[in-house]
């Protein structure tokens, strides 16, 4: 077996810029101390794959409105609770009597809804293809069990269009670490058109230290040869075609729509929303597009797309820290700024 660790540490070719799109990859890279194992000529850039970070403030505002509505309970994953909308976060309004519950799984909603039939339970449905599959399964179960007092407020995003956006509008990325778990659902073939169009390689990677290093090795090698190809380094769960049952279930309940990404504006066809016939399960997800950054100097928009590093932002580490976050990149534990701050990353 090739000594990929030595190769990566000693690499002395032209500088390469590799983007990891997925927020969980950003966290895994920091967690494993990957930057310390790479030659300084291999630069890792964090991309827009942190659903909390790319959610616009109007979505949070709508969520807050719902949480303060009589007989309505908002259920959410952990991170969303502390993200600020145009003024407040869900955490802030709990003090005003807002009904907010943190759950591990959206499917917990089924039990909650059955236990309290007089209340409407709204899930803060953010996420990429991985989690969209879970929301589809939730709807399937809800319909089968005839549970009607649940809703989704969606801010669902998909990968291909946004990757295309980064390559087209920004460029400067030599290779992509493709999201491991999104690919479980979509299949690794999804990246082929992008690899061909932009002539950059994609490596689908897992989340363990070893898996990340192997994927980075494969990318640097492939970049060296100017080869725009897709490589699957997570074959235990990722196949070329993906999970087709999950894909069908997603298309059954959701349809493609335009989506607003913090810092990028509206990217056409980059999101998903509940189909018309399932409107009854929607909590008002359409056209939540506007976004208010708090501080005029907040560079989240640039950081999310990899145009700048957290350290490039004037507020980073001074006005903006995890205790006093100015933007979503610092609030979410998968945000680039948070990750860089708590790990004192310089690279």
């Amino acid at each position, binding site marked *: 077996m090739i000594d990929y*660790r030595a190769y990566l540490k000693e690499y002395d070719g032209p500088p390469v810029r590799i983007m990891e799109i997925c*927020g969980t990859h950003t*966290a895994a890279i*920091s*967690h*494993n*101390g*990957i*930057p*310390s*194992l790479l030659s300084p000529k291999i630069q890792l850039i964090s991309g827009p794959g942190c*659903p*909390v970070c790319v959610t616009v403030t109007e979505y949070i505002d709508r969520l807050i409105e719902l949480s303060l509505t009589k007989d309505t309970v908002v259920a959410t*994953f*952990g*991170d969303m*609770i*502390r993200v600020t909308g145009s003024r407040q976060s869900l955490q802030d309004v709990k003090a005003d009597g807002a009904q907010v519950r*943190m*759950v*591990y799984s959206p499917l*917990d909603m089924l039990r909650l809804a059955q236990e309290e039939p007089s209340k409407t339970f709204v899930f803060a449905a*953010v*996420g*990429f293809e*991985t*989690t969209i599959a879970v929301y589809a399964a939730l709807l399937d179960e809800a319909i089968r069990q005839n549970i009607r007092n649940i809703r989704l407020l969606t801010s669902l995003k998909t990968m291909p269009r946004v990757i295309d956006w980064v390559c087209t509008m920004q460029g400067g990325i030599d290779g992509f670490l493709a999201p491991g778990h999104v690919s479980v659902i979509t299949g690794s073939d999804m990246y082929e058109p992008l690899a061909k169009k932009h002539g950059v390689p994609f490596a689908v990677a897992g989340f*363990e*230290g*070893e898996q*990340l*290093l192997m994927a980075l090795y494969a990318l640097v090698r492939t970049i060296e040869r100017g080869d725009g190809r897709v490589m699957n380094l997570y074959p235990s769960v990722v196949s070329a075609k993906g999970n087709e049952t999950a894909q069908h279930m997603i298309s059954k309940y959701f349809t493609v729509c335009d989506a607003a990404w913090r810092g990028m504006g509206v990217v056409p066809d980059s999101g998903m929303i509940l189909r018309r016939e399932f409107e009854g399960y929607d909590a008002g997800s359409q056209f939540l597009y506007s976004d208010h950054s708090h501080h005029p100097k907040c560079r989240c928009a640039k950081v999310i797309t990899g145009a700048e590093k957290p350290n490039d932002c004037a507020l980073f580490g001074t006005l903006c*820290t*995890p*205790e006093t976050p100015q933007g979503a990149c610092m609030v*979410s*534990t*998968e945000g680039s700024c*948070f990750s860089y*701050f*708590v*790990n*004192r*990353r310089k690279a």
Partner: protein
Amino acid sequence: MSHGSGGKATSDLISSIFAHYFDNPVLAKMEDAAVVPGAARLAMTTDSFVVTPLFFAGADIGKLAVCGTVNDLAMSGATPKYLTCGFILEEGADSGDIEKIAASMADTARECGVLIVAGDTKVIEGKGGIYINTAGVGFLPDDLPAVSSASCSKGDVILLSGTLGDHHAAILSARMNITNTIQSDCAPLHGMVAALLAKNIRIKAMRDVTRGGLATILHEFSVASRGCISIDEDRIPVSAQVQGLCGILGLDPLYMGNEGKMVAVVAAGDADAALAAMKSSPYGTNAAIIGSLTAGEPGTLVLSTKAGGTRMMTELYGEGLPRIC
């Protein structure tokens, strides 16, 4: 709302439950103040306990209150001696629960060799919640060397008394409907500290690993001592179950709270003896040497990861909410 307003109902509550379980000659006098023998130097502490649920795998709010107070005193090198205990009961608090909590506190106090010498009860409007406040007093031996994290220096060795995250994991599992056999590690550490002192270990710093986790404490030590602390992920004990829970919820055991674990920084020459002292305690079976003060940027905590890389760590930010996406 007749309990706690000072009348007969309150005194019935006090005498029937608290006086019974906490029974000792000082408390039995039922005076307004407890008069007790003292020492030249005292350690004092106070804390309040508001955990829910009241009863969880491995412990309850009462045991937590006694151990938490005892441990704060022990970490200063003091022998814990006396506790006070104030209860704030919301209307509707279950008297069966109150009794169980009092019994648990009495048992724990007995194990720790402390007396609960004064108490108070208030009843307020609410939905049945129970909150406990304690104050603790301990005696400091005259010849105790100063223990201060500022004195940690290069070469000193860092020890951890056992597995990380158990308490936090036990509480979280109940809230998130995840089934496991994780127990809170709630335990008194005065015996372990006494064992360290008895062996004349040169202790530079000691702390119990509570909210904020190991990383928060070690980062504080590195800043206070202007040193660089290096630790090895490989050597840090974490149970397989807690590791599994962390994987499901996306948590880091180095930032999770414990209630029965301590970290000690000792002179290198005493490291082995210190480890043996920790292991001599029933609460130290998984004690380990996890790192040391090394050359490096002052005021930093560096972790050598299992993947072979290094990563700098800071104190805990936020509440360590489980992340999923």
